[in-house]
């Protein structure tokens, strides 16, 4: 078990209302997992609590010893004083430089490396940002809508590539696309409104790796389960 959240209760510092109450969840096995739920339910907040970026909650987060957890989101930007390629090279540990080239190819960023971040499209920006996180040493990478604004085909290619390159790492993918999380995630943590009990339900996904055809009936069943749980 890489991570276990036990009885997490939290309210925003400025707010009176609770956002989580006795919430429990965990990530037992490596792979691509989803965090799904309606807008405003607290997905990003839970993700940042897991990443250690938010404190002041009640309950306990148990992590495997020295587990590196990174949180990335689609609101992040690369600094504008150098090209995307220069930035990626600079923040990549030497051992991961070959991987950088592989990711640039797989994420179709070849045409962007000489451009400044501000010159990229929204989809390219998100891919460039995700790339630099994937090049770091991590055990769990939380991807908070990291592939927003990326077209469906490229998104699929990116997820499949991540699964191929990092089979031993943990990913927590936050998305509003039921079909996407149902297709590619092994487990989906469905976060619900605080008034529902339990607040978080786990649903099994299809964990598709792109190499075999999808069982459409099973996928639809998983999607229905997610929608009903939410």
């Amino acid at each position, binding site marked *: 078990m890489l991570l276990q959240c036990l009885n997490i209760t939290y309210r925003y510092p400025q707010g009176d209302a609770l956002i989580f109450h006795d919430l429990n969840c965990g990530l037992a096995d490596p792979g691509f997992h989803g965090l799904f739920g309606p807008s405003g339910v607290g997905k990003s907040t839970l993700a940042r609590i897991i990443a250690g970026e938010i404190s002041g909650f009640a309950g306990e987060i148990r992590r495997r010893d020295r587990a590196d957890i990174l949180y990335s989101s689609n*609101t*992040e930007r690369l*600094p*504008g*004083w150098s090209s995307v390629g220069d930035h990626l090279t600079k923040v990549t540990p030497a051992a991961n430089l070959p991987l950088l080239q592989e990711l640039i190819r797989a994420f179709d960023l070849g045409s962007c490396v000489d451009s*400044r971040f*501000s010159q990229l499209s929204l989809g390219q920006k998100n891919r460039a*940002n995700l790339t*630099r996180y994937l090049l770091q040493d991590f055990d769990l990478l939380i991807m908070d809508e990291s592939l927003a604004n990326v077209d469906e085909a490229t998104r699929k290619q990116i997820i499949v590539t991540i699964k191929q390159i990092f089979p031993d790492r943990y990913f927590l993918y936050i998305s509003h696309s039921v079909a996407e999380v149902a297709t590619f995630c092994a487990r989906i943590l469905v976060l619900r409104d605080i008034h529902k009990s339990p607040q978080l339900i786990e649903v099994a996904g299809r964990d598709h790796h792109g190499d075999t055809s999808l069982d459409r009936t099973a996928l639809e069943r998983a999607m229905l389960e997610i929608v009903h749980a939410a």
Partner: protein
Amino acid sequence: MLHKRLSQFLIIYFLGLGLLLAVKYCFGLSDYVIPGFTDMQNTAQAVAAGYLRAVLDTLGVAVIGHLLAIALATVVAIVGRPDNLLGTMIKTAAYNLQAYPIVAVAPIIFILLGDGLPSRLLIAAIICYFPLLLSFIGILSEPVAGIEHFYIVTGRMRWQLEVKIRAFENIHKLITVVTGSATLAMVGTIVAEFIGADSGIGYSLRIALYQSDIAKVLVALFLIGVFNSLYLVGLELLGLAVRKRMGVEQRIQQ
């Protein structure tokens, strides 16, 4: 840029001059109170060379004072940037001190340092220092979460990088503040010279005041306006060059 600044100044200057002459002729004021246009021309020819040297002297002091203030404000803003005890103390002191009309301490400076260059320089610097400091502290204390997050969570954040990110993201504000404070540096120098120095255009203005010679004052105002405009344009061009070098222009076009 230069054309725009100079033409703006010239329009205002000659409108003011026209108004002054209109008052003179409407109320039949004597040449002693407001000299006629010919007297002004004669005075200009007589004092232009000396006043030009005085304005350049003043501008030189203002530029050095301005640079000192920028350097000091940068250092203090970097030190006062963190959200800790020292940072809070520096911010509080800066906010309180800037509320005081600092030019009022000029006599003390003249008493302690005499009427030479150090006094003029110090007064020029402190008059533009506090507005610079407040802006610099505000800019350098404000996190740019979207960019800084990656460096923080990957353990790469250093204070130099933090300052670089915040300065880069606010380069327009910084350039505007630096350009805006240039006029304050010029004002500070002139005020210092007017109060107690023995050189510079402020000193010449003091003599013109004692002689009740409006023509001399108008010549001085003309030269001050022209050279202040040139200094502002120089700073704006420098800011443009900095922005281009840092690639900020590409960002603006997006």
